[in-house]
């Protein structure tokens, strides 16, 4: 039997007064002695492992994790809520710090996913329900109706050119142009199949049209398609739900909703992308003219403790703003580019060199100071009022285009997903890791792993490293045939259990289930009673149930109620 009185962490490290600390050390010793006397042998159980992994989110994080898991020989499914995998990286033009084209390095990986036998993509799908525990999750996946048969559609795109419903905002280009009611998000989409948008299709809304069905040579259009539900077993789940830029309507001072020529950085990526709405020529969204003066504002909604934005640093904006400024100066040397910053943060391999190149080689005007007001003028110009903190002067710049480096936040679906997974999140809705330094790719919930920006802001190199790390952890789990379970789990004394569900309601891991059992009563009759039982593979030994249980039927191995009472008694003893 072993019991530890932790004098180092719980006493000597944290107290300065030697005399009282000594007293406390003695008390801690006394408590441990009281506890060890009531110790009982602990035995670990076993549970089997399903050799298949689920990756939720098909951005670069999810893609990399899935490919690495498949490489090790395990089956892996990707659930992506959009019609195609790719995530934000598919929308980005060129990538810092090397300035290679995002699509050129991403699309081969997307194709690899679709061709690898071990990877199955559930695109346009969402996770509906998660049950079970590490090694043994049961997940219900909702495959949303595309109204196009994925197996028949060849991705020829004929339907998307004939559809008469033309003015649908194109989300892939962030609403900067339009698409049809039936669409393929971009040319390299995976899976490359069309999707009908039920909010705009005239056939689905009013029963009139049916044109796409006529033009489709493959007979793939199916207006009667329904959402499908698939249930699948997994040994491990990886969350890779990524991020979105925040909405900017709360930041009136930046005039985002007042002028089309005030754009977010992600919109700028589309405006500079050869496959974007302007074919890669940087033009003002309002009048299609070349902008000659461009103002960038960093930290819009980041490091903002006013409550409007996010308290954290979004980490990527300094670098992508340097990238944008540099690319614009390179392509359009006649353009003046101003960047307003609080400070420039460029930790990362070759990052500071990259930023210095923007300043020194490309002559981007970096100004330390915050923009106070962005006001569109009648003449199409945008007045930017700002302060230069280093020169201590007020600036008024007449700009043609203003680019806001909006903070990023976790995808809105992450919070409900975390609840389904019983995985914990921080106050900003980023998934929390099991240990911020030593277990950064695991969630505290066993069998749940984290990949990419869903865990915290990061760029692509960091995302990919984390994605591979998460895959390594998953592989380490899936190669096992059986898992030993934590012996310090709760158990229920059925003779005392009321079946009242108090414990079930507080258990954060869903470890408690009920069954009706027959009991022999003192008068020799039998009685059917509902009683609780704990699944030792799911229980994390948190002890919440033992406190909630009114009758004391629930108890925790290794930390029994009587042991804790004995410790308290020992501590209170004089």
């Amino acid at each position, binding site marked *: 039997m072993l019991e530890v009185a932790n004098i180092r962490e719980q006493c000597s490290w944290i107290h300065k007064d030697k005399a009282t600390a000594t007293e406390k050390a003695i008390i801690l010793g006394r408590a441990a002695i009281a506890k060890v006397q009531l110790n009982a042998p602990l035995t670990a159980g076993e549970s089997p492992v399903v050799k298949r992994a689920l990756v939720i989110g098909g951005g670069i994080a999810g893609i990399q994790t899935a490919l690495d898991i498949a490489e090790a020989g395990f089956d892996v499914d990707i659930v992506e809520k959009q019609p195609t995998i790719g995530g934000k990286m598919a929308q980005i033009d060129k990538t810092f710090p090397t300035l290679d084209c995002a699509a050129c390095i991403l699309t081969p990986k997307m194709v690899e996913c679709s061709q690898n036998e071990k990877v199955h993509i559930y695109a346009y799908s969402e996770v509906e329900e998660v049950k079970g525990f590490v090694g043994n999750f049961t997940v219900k996946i909702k495959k949303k109706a595309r109204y196009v048969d994925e197996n028949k559609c060849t991705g020829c795109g004929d339907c998307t050119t004939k559809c008469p419903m033309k003015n649908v905002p194109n989300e892939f280009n962030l609403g900067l142009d339009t698409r049809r009611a039936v669409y393929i998000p971009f040319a390299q989409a995976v899976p490359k199949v069309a999707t009908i948008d039920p909010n705009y299709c005239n056939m689905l809304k009013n029963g009139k049209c049916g044109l796409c069905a006529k033009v489709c040579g493959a007979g793939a259009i199916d207006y009667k398609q329904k959402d499908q539900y698939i249930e699948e077993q997994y040994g491990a789940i990886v969350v890779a739900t990524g991020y979105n830029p925040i909405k900017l309507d709360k930041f009136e001072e930046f005039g985002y909703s007042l002028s089309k020529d005030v754009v977010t950085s992600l919109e700028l990526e589309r405006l500079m992308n050869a496959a974007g709405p302007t074919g890669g020529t940087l033009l003002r969204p309002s009048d299609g003219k070349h902008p000659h003066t461009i103002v960038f504002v960093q930290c819009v909604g980041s490091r903002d403790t006013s409550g409007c934005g996010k308290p954290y640093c979004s980490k990527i904006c300094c670098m992508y703003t340097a990238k944008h400024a540099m690319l614009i100066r390179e392509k359009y040397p006649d353009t003046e580019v101003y960047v307003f910053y609080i400070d420039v943060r460029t930790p990362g391999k070759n990052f500071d060199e990259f930023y210095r190149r923007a300043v020194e080689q490309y002559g981007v005007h970096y100004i330390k100071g915050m923009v106070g007001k962005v006001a569109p003028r009648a003449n199409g110009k945008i007045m930017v009022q700002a302060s230069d903190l280093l020169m201590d002067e007020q600036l008024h710049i007449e700009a043609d285009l203003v680019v806001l480096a909006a903070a990023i936040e976790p995808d809105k679906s992450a919070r409900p997903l975390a609840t389904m997974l019983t995985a914990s999140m921080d106050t900003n809705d980023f998934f929390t890791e099991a240990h911020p330094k030593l277990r950064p790719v695991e969630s505290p919930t066993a069998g749940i792993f984290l990949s990419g920006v869903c865990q915290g802001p990061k760029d692509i190199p960091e995302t990919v490293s984390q994605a591979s790390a998460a895959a390594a952890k998953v592989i380490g789990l899936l190669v096992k045939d059986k898992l030993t379970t934590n012996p310090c789990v709760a158990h229920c004394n059925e*003779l*005392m*259990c*009321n*079946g*009242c*569900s*108090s414990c079930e309601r507080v258990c954060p891991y869903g470890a408690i289930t*009920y069954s009706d059992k027959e009991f022999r009563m003192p008068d020799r009759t039998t*009685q*059917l*009673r*509902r009683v609780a039982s704990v699944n030792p593979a799911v229980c994390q030994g948190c002890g919440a149930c033992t406190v909630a249980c*009114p*009758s*004391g*039927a629930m108890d925790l191995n290794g930390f029994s*109620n*009587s042991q804790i*009472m004995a410790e308290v008694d020992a501590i209170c003893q004089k």
Partner: protein
Amino acid sequence: MQGMMIARAKELLQDGTVNRVLGWQAGEFAYDITPAVFETAEELDAGFVYNAFCGNNLSKYLIKETKKDGKVLVFLKPCDTYSFNQLLTEHRFDREKVYAIGIPCEGKTSGEMLKAKGVSGITGIDEDGDSITVHTVYGDQGFNRSDVLEERCLTCKSKKHVAYDELIGEDGEVLDSHRFDMVAKLEAMTPDERFAFWRSQLSKCIRCNACRNVCPACSCEKCVFDNPESGIAQKAAADSFEENMFQIIRAFHVAGRCTDCGECSRA
């Protein structure tokens, strides 16, 4: 009311909906009401009562009663239906085995309340709206209901039934009770005053367990106070504070589950 209830109970026994009836009967004295189970029409005629003394909350008895075969008929006052629902959420009995009839309640009195008003030799009671007539061996005595109401009924939270299969009489409304006036008073006290208040309140407890026994929230198969392994089981108290701990522990046990039925204060 009593007549209507007996008549309906007989019907339900007759048509086989239920095979027994959970209600009230008088003990040695007319005000000495206890819960009782009736299995035949004759037993109902002989013993079933419902009057202003019938304060007992019958819902707790369903735990035992539903373990038997067949359905049981139970009569529930508005406040009892809250306990009924709480027990249901705790899966303490099988709803399928209960036929619940909601009955109105204008507030209950008790032998103690009347005795305190100097009444003795009580043989019966009648109610009519706001007035209560007590029959005694010395003749009848009339009261205003509000003058003889039990403490818990003075702050009755609702006359509305929240669970039933059928109702006899009209359903009432949720009342604007003054249940939290005392809480406000407590909050206004200084910590020392509050401590003294509780010590004095708790010192009244003689640890007879009566409150626990009637409490519909206290329905554990094995109560911690009866379990020597819990470390807080019934034993001679080492000091007066340990005695007080009983109520404090019980308060924590029923927190979030107590429905304010007031049975404990009656006991």
